[in-house]
């Protein structure tokens, strides 16, 4: 023990104790700070959870009249949506089938267009040409992630609709499911691409080398080794793109026409894509200025918000399951 010297002598810490063992008060203080930091961090996390719970409770509370007086069956199966008819004429109609179908249709189309593109971009960035990919393509794609969605919508309105008018049936102005699907696809390609690229990066180099050693071409490696290995990340990228597309209101509102009638696919075939339609998000934003004056219509819109929230929750749960799949099966 060299501590007998006093002054600036510092005894080395005894094994098993923290580094402030030399000065007793310091150890107590640093332990208090440590505990305090733990509580603060826990508080931040807990606050987030509480916030989510409060939001869900708020939405459910305001949507409750839909369940009690409008009826869930009418809400989910009827296409007669006139929530504000109650203002002037007596009884509003609250059939939300059209917006719900519209949301899923538009997002499905967007994913159909976006996923192949996004995976192609990701593969290019990581494997086909990493030099050009990392230096030019990836920064460009990441810039696109930051562009506000209203810009996409407005560009779609100005440039895409006139183009679609050429192939639209007479009397239609080009707005509809196809226009909304294209705009959303352009919006979510960067999201899916960047996450998939990260997934492809994280595949161990040994897998690539092993595949090359076995004599595989680059495409064979990509298709049979890398993409399956990165599948959990790619799936989570797709699901996040899905959530973003599902929640998009303004970009879609500008190009979808906002007509509450389900296009007759039997009659029009593929032309149904060029009929105007609506989505849950567009229907909710439509009624924002009537909130004060129409309690039943407002409750129906809150119910649409609950449905949206529920769909997004399911998507996030799928992401968690996909991520766990990676850790589980790659033991």
């Amino acid at each position, binding site marked *: 023990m060299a501590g007998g010297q006093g002054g600036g002598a510092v005894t080395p810490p005894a094994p098993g104790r923290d580094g402030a063992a030399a000065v007793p008060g310091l150890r107590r203080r640093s332990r208090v700070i440590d505990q305090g930091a733990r509580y603060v961090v826990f508080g931040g996390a807990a606050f987030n959870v509480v916030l989510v719970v409060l939001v869900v409770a708020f939405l459910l509370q305001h949507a409750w009249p839909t369940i009690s007086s409008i009826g869930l069956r009418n809400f989910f199966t009827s296409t007669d949506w*006139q929530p504000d*008819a109650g203002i002037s004429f007596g009884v509003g109609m609250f059939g939300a089938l059209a917006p719900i179908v519209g949301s899923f249709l538009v997002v499905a189309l967007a994913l159909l267009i976006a996923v192949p593109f996004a995976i192609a971009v990701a593969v290019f960035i990581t494997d086909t040409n990493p030099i050009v990919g990392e230096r030019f393509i990836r920064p460009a794609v990441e810039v696109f992630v930051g562009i506000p969605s209203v810009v996409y919508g407005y560009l779609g309105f100005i440039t895409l609709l*006139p183009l679609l*008018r050429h192939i639209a049936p007479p*009397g239609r102005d080009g707005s509809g499911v196809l226009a909304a699907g294209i705009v959303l696809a352009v919006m979510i390609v960067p999201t899916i691409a960047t996450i998939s690229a990260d997934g492809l990066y994280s595949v161990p180099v040994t897998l690539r080398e092993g595949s090359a050693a076995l004599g595989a071409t680059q495409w064979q490696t990509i298709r049979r080794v890398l993409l399956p290995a990165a599948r959990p990340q790619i799936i989570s990228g797709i699901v996040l793109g899905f959530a973003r597309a599902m929640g998009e209101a303004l970009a879609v509102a500008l190009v979808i026409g906002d007509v509450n009638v389900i296009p007759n696919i039997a009659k029009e075939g593929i032309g149904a894509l060029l009929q*105007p339609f609506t989505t849950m998000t567009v229907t909710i934003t439509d009624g924002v200025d*009537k909130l*004060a004056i129409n309690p039943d219509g407002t409750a129906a819109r809150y119910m649409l918000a609950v449905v949206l929230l529920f769909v997004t929750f399911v998507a996030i749960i799928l992401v968690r399951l996909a991520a766990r799949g990676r850790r589980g099966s790659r033991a």
Partner: protein
Amino acid sequence: MQLRLLAIPAIAGLALVACGSDNNTSSTTTGNAAATATPSPTAAACQTGTITASGSTALQPLVQAAAQAYQTKCTGATITVSGGGSSTGLSNVSSGASDIGDSDVPVSNAKAVDPTTVKDHQVAIVVFSVIVNPKAGVTNLTTAQVRDIFSGKDTNWSQVGGANQAITLVERKPGSGTRLSFDKIIMQGTNESATPASTQDSTQLVLSGVAGPPGGVSYLAASSADATVTKVSLDGVAPSGDNVKAGTYKYFSHEHMYTKTAPASPLVEAFINFMVAADFQSTTVTQLGFLPLSTTTEQSLADQ
């Protein structure tokens, strides 16, 4: 190496700024002209206090111009003007959240508001017009023809004497005050088509929706129509203030400002009196695209 990439958007941004800099001067000069020409209240009519007005976005520019002029002359008055839509305005004045509720439609359209608790003040007249794309080849339609077009019965402009062009119907969103006025005055019980080409509410988008497709048709306030669309005469009568005065053009309505039957602040009455005074009516009201109350005492179907 990443910094080099920043040069590309930076140069592009500079180029855009340099190219597109001349468009803002015209709107600011007209704004200034309106402000300098707005009359001021006489000193005797000045009241003090703080009031709020909210509601119709169509009426909002007029109320804002009046508030600005009033506050400049009467320093003890504070008037805050906001939008939110006619329904919001009606609900606000009923609940007391606003002193004045601006509305394009009469309070009878708001089931949640008790009409006996509010008082109506009409402050201006709006002339509406059916607008069509010039390529449709029509300048005049009968009211019956307009009904057929908007109910979806007619699908080609040749059926009403125009070019051989499919009709592209742009409607307003259900619940819109403009749609309500159109339905009451023109449609009169016939429903608008459930499957238009699209529904819009912002004036700009309605104009783009009509000017874009060759067969576009819709309706809006006549003063908002620009050179890209044609204003249609109804039954041979053009949408103008003179024709409203003569009683031959029926597609118009009054703008309302609702207050509580006994407003809390004397500033409310003073402000509204300022807006309906002949001075204000003959200058600012016409400058902002409305018609003065003196044009006609007739109440349109939308206000009955």
